[in-house]
């Protein structure tokens, strides 16, 4: 833009580039303003609070969720009450395919999601309308532009004991497990806020929203940057390395020794 204005000064406002510059300024300012308004949660908030969404959500809930969670979210023997779990919880559980459950088991497993994003949001709107709870995360905490170093430290201290330092997942008791982390930033944020299934809640007093943003930044960095050392063998650490050394390393060498000592026919 500064380039364009310089040229404008040089050639006056009749320069052929003036039109281009004007267009650029106009587009940038309107686009920027739009981004400012829609980039926040304003749109999501208004969406999720609209009566239309809530009604839509109620229909979906009655058809798909009420048999376990009750028609008024009061819960039953098969499922807990959902009063006060908030939109974040619904978005996480339904958005990652954990709900509706495939079967009763030690824990709900991730699977291809059963509802479209819009339907998920409608369900979230309905559940949120019946009791206060954590809302959908603010987009500015999900941009992955935080401090990765702080995030890595927080991740090691708070998350790695279950999810493994590389986020490859780990075992818990009685068939439960901490899954490998490959979720979207929004789902990661929601998981920290709501503490789904066996996960503890990391509320804002524990990990501030900025801290959560840093953790998401670190996870995004790990996901996007290639491993410096080569193929990571599932990020499972020495077990995978040992098996690889035995079966592929020593295996290859034993095959070579057999070949070297084979009698030629």
């Amino acid at each position: 833009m500064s380039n364009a204005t310089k040229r404008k000064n040089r050639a006056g406002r009749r320069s052929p580039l003036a039109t281009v510059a004007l267009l650029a300024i106009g587009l940038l300012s309107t686009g920027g303003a739009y981004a400012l308004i829609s980039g926040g949660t304003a749109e999501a908030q208004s969406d999720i609070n609209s009566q239309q969404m809530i009604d839509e959500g109620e229909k979906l809930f009655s058809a798909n969720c009420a048999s376990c969670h009750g028609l008024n979210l009061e819960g039953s023997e098969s499922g807990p009450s959902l009063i006060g779990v908030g939109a974040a919880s619904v978005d996480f559980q339904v958005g990652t395919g954990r709900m509706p459950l495939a079967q009763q088991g030690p824990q709900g497993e991730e699977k291809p999601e059963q509802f479209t994003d819009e339907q998920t949001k409608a369900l979230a709107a309905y559940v949120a309308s019946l009791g206060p709870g954590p809302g959908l995360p603010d987009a500015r905490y999900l941009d992955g532009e935080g401090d990765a170093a702080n995030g890595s430290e927080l991740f090691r201290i708070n998350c790695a004991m279950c999810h493994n330092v590389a986020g490859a997942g780990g075992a818990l008791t009685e068939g439960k497990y901490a899954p490998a982390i490959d979720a979207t930033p929004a789902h990661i944020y929601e998981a920290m806020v709501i503490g789904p299934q066996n996960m503890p809640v990391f509320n804002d007093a524990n990990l501030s929203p900025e801290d959560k943003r840093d953790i998401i930044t670190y996870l995004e960095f790990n996901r996007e940057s290639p491993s410096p050392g080569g193929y990571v063998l599932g990020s499972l650490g020495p077990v995978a390395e040992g098996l690889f050394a035995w079966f592929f390393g020593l295996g290859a060498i034993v095959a070579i020794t057999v070949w070297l000592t084979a009698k030629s026919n």
Partner: protein
Amino acid sequence: MSTTTEPKRTRASSYTAAASNYIDERTTISAVVKEFGRKIFPDHWSFMLGEVALYSFVVILVTGTFLTFFYDPSMAETHYEGSYVPLKGVEMSVAMASTLDISFDIRGGLLVRQIHHWAALLFIAAMGLHMLRVFFTGTFRKPRELNWVIGFVLFILGMGEGFTGYSLPDDLLSGNGLRIIEGLVMGIPVIGTWISFLLFGGEFPGTAIVGRLYTLHILLLPAVLVALLALHLVFVVVHKHTQFAGPGRTNENVLGVPILPTFAAKAGGFFFIVFGVIVVMATFFAINPIWVYGPYDPSPVSAGTQPDWYIGFADGALRLIPPGLEIEFLNRTWSFNILIPMVALGAIIVLPMIYPFIEHWITRDNREHHIADRPRNAPTRTGIGAAGVTFYGVLWAAASSDLIATHFDLAMEHVIHFLQAAAILGPVVAYLITKRVCLALMKKDREIALHGIESGRIVKLPGGEFIEVHEQLDDYDRWKLVSYNDYAPLMIRPNSRGKITAATRVRAGLSRWFFEDRIAPVTRREVELSHGEHHAAAAIEGEHQSAIGADSNRH
């Protein structure tokens, strides 16, 4: 003794001769060259496993030297300022920071680190496989018992080298490993706490341990290792190589190629093959990504924290021991949940090391053995080995109990309970099955040696009788099946004072356990007998006779 050349040789050759002569006149090296150069290596793939270990060790030495140029074993605190973004500004020790610098800011550093680590895993794995070969072929017997012990000490030193090296980066994973070692040491009654404070220079983790481990890793352990390695190789030359039974191969000779020139060339090439395999692994596969683990901090422990594979059996023993085995006695806590695994680990290390002496005590076999046993021909020993391998394998698997649970959709408790049962029952079952399989294989060998292989060709004799034609083995193949030592249980005999001591009884009992179930080797007479008769009828009868009439070459 040195090379003598004819006067009409070319200039280059006579120069070589002169140089050789010059050196030989001052060092008498020709005797050594003669001895080493004429050492014969029989060709069998399993005889090259020790070489693999040796070559991996050379690779470790070369790459390790490079790493010492850049590594700084200091536990002083610093803030990382290298090029790996997610650790920028994070507080860590200088040791960790210098390892990160090797990985990211020194040209070729990461590759060399990965070569070093992969080579270390391969070194110990190759030693393990080499030891299994020596054990199952019985080549630890006289005169090689001491070399077996030296080799075993090399294996322990290798594990020590591995563990000290694994701890040097001062990353989260290795720090947790050290913490476990500290707990183990503390679990020793009375002296444990003292030893721990001595080792760490105070409360864990302290500021001394990395420097101390570094001294052990690059000075003491390698020095001892190289010295014992040299001794091991000298013994290999002194004892001559073992060989499998075959035509022309006896206890007094070795058939194969001499080191110079053929084997040396082959071995030199093989070194580069091993080096190449390691470099390929290090190029394409990450190992010990300390930048993911982060700097050591006593509070976090990652899920899936395991030691390198060769320490896995120790980790597994700790995972398998049931909780709550602690008592207070004499105003002290006795942690049997630590002591019992330590005894198990001690047994895993000590029992195989002294096994040659145990077996000798039982067999009282004072002959030299230069022919390697086929494992099936020593069923009890092979069974014992299988039991040991099973026990080790179960402990080793237990070190990855959490990963077994997550990757096979099992509950961790079920995995642990299954492995607890397997640790106790598995060795027994493995022993019984292996011994029976060995005996069955010996029976089959005996059958084949006497009657040949069923050809599947049915012939009708003029009298109307149908017989299946057996194809006889040629003498070369039969030789392999019939040449092995036969042992019989010792008789209990009174000693010179006319008494039967308890030790004699124990030994007789063990000897019976070892040799009661046995299949005698086929003798030449039996082979000749079986050839002269109809196969169909003679098969059954001949077997009975031979089993009774087999004359064992007992001592």
